[in-house]
């Protein structure tokens, strides 16, 4: 409690203004404007009417209640995975395996949701299964790094593919629907589905969870002793070890927490939106999460805005494909170009960011 107060006073002494505290919003806001301009440019290059493309991009993403709901539904898993990636990166763990952890989370959630009958409160266990599944999948990579010094970038990438094929096998094997017609699971029974919040809409409790996770991760990192240790390990593992911090244990903690969040993202997708597991349950959410975390400046508030931005772009792009005849994968090009430009103008860096906040405390 007092350390948090001291830190705030120190920041004020060091001249950290209110404006700079809102700085996290800048990249996402710049990105929003850039994305609109780039979409017009790319749409024109692909032979479509740019004005029409922009119009459908905007109306299709936030222009109506229905499209806004779709955007929010997409933003939920992006926020959870993005926060997971943020936690890992800030702790010096380069976990690029959110995609695999999300898939295993969805797989575990589906096993509990469709293979254990139906009983009141089942959804709690469904969510828990997702978290445990994602955490265990991440723990493989964490264990390999801690015990065998194998670089986690490689292991998490490889595990993403293994997870993809595991899901593909499960929906045609042990988790396949009783009718055995399509490669998909049985539908979730009602008590395994997430509560609608607010009732009567398509929005679900998973979105609330995602918001809570974003707040919780922010508090954990900046206001707790554990968070201080994690950030220290991220900034300078050698120094953290010298200071007597349990760096190995913290690495495992950051990695599994990150995986658990991705696993919950998978669980809320099956228990909140699709109601079933099938092979293409994730459209690269775990990969986009890396971009979400980085564009969000590895801060909770920024990651929230970035998740909303990416979700709106994807939703708007689908509408654009229907009405302006521009293919929806254009959104990926816009995302890439936007990130590149923001990276250049902001010179943001997942390593540099942590370092620069350290400098501020020092001067």
């Amino acid at each position, binding site marked *: 409690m007092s350390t948090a107060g001291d830190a705030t006073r120190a920041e004020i002494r060091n001249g950290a203004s209110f404006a700079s505290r809102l700085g996290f919003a800048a990249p996402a806001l710049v990105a929003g404007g850039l994305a609109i301009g780039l979409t017009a440019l*790319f749409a024109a290059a*692909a*032979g479509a009417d740019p004005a029409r493309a922009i119009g459908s991009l905007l109306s299709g993403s936030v222009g109506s209640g229905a499209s806004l709901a779709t955007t929010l539904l997409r933003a939920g898993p992006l926020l959870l995975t993005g926060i997971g990636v943020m936690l890992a990166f800030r702790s010096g763990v380069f976990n690029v395996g959110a995609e695999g952890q999300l898939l295993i989370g969805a797989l575990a959630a589906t096993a509990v949701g469709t293979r254990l009958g139906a009983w009141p409160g089942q959804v709690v266990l469904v969510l828990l299964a997702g978290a445990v599944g994602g955490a265990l999948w991440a723990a493989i990579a964490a264990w*390999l790094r801690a015990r*065998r*010094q*194998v*670089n986690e*970038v*490689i*292991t998490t*990438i*490889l*595990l*993403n*593919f*293994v997870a993809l*094929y*595991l899901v*593909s*096998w499960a929906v*045609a*094997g042990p988790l396949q629907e009783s009718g055995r017609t399509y490669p998909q699971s049985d539908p979730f029974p009602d008590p395994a589905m997430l509560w609608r919040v607010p009732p009567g809409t398509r929005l679900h409790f998973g979105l609330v969870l995602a918001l809570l996770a974003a707040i919780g991760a922010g508090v954990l990192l900046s206001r707790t002793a554990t968070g201080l240790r994690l950030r220290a390990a991220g900034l300078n593992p050698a120094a953290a070890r010298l200071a007597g911090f349990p760096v190995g244990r913290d690495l495992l903690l950051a990695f599994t927490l990150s995986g658990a969040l991705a696993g919950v993202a998978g669980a809320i997708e099956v228990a909140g939106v699709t109601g079933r597991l099938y092979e293409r349950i994730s459209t690269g959410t775990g990969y986009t999460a*890396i*971009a979400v975390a*980085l564009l969000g400046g590895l801060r909770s508030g920024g990651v929230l805005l970035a998740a909303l931005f990416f979700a709106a772009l994807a939703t708007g792009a689908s509408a654009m494909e229907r009405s302006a005849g*521009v*293919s929806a*994968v*254009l*959104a*990926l*090009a*816009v*995302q*890439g*170009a*936007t*990130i*590149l430009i923001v*990276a*250049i103008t902001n*010179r*943001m*860096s*997942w*390593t*540099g960011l942590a370092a620069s906040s350290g400098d501020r405390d020092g001067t």
Partner: protein
Amino acid sequence: MVLESFLAAGLLLATPILLAALGELLVERTGVLNIGVEGTMLAGAFAAALAASASGDAGLGALAAVGMGVAVAALFAGATLFLGADQIIAGAAINLLALGATGTLYRALLGGTGAPLLLPSLPPLPVPLLADLPFVGRIFFSQNAVVYLAIVVVPILAALLSRTGLGLRLRAIGDHPAAASSLGYSVRAHRFWATLVGGALGGLGGATLTLAATNTFVEGITAGRGFVALAVVVFGRWSPWGALAGALLFGLASALQFQLQAAALSIPYQAFLMLPYVLTLLVLVVSRGSASAPRALGTRES
């Protein structure tokens, strides 16, 4: 006979990854981490498909892929080396950009008819005399020109890095950029050219997918091979010979997967699709350690 065709297929499937890994290895040795290999390969594969289908000549396709690889690498180098963008963010951005741009352009230019695109393929070039050798002739000396090129690059790159003054400078820049700079060597120039050469190899690796392995282009055809190439660099401990071993391991595992699927065992096919990734993981677990990474890898110019 079965063994021969299995090994020959393994070599062919290893080639795209080997080329991309050799390019990335050179780049990483100078201290630059370009995780945009996946996007570079994809852009190269697309350029190859476009040029080959327009001209009917697979050779021109391969050339276009090299050009595209260099262009994508120049974009990465411009952003990171000259405009100060973070390497990992820029690399991730390029992957997204390539996936989106090739997908959009493919639908606009090549797709839309619904019929699968059939591309001219790089013809096998049997080496006179050697191709007639029993066993090895069929495996090593009846491949296409790009496979030979990939294999030849291995000793050349190894010699360049460990036996020439240029190689020493490149490695010094990757380990101690400040020291190299104080000796009067331009860190930025060396990194820039290394990145362009890496892009050329990555683009050509992508071309092998469209012009030799499949003879078609589909969206996202690289399917993570660029990431596998990144893994192969670490697996091979930043040595070209190590990269060759890693790429062959992955290529052979992929070929084995096709053989086993053809054998129609009662094992689910997903188990075979997983095989290359699981095998690579297991080998990493057994071989452990990555102490030979360039010390300044991924850091900004200092």
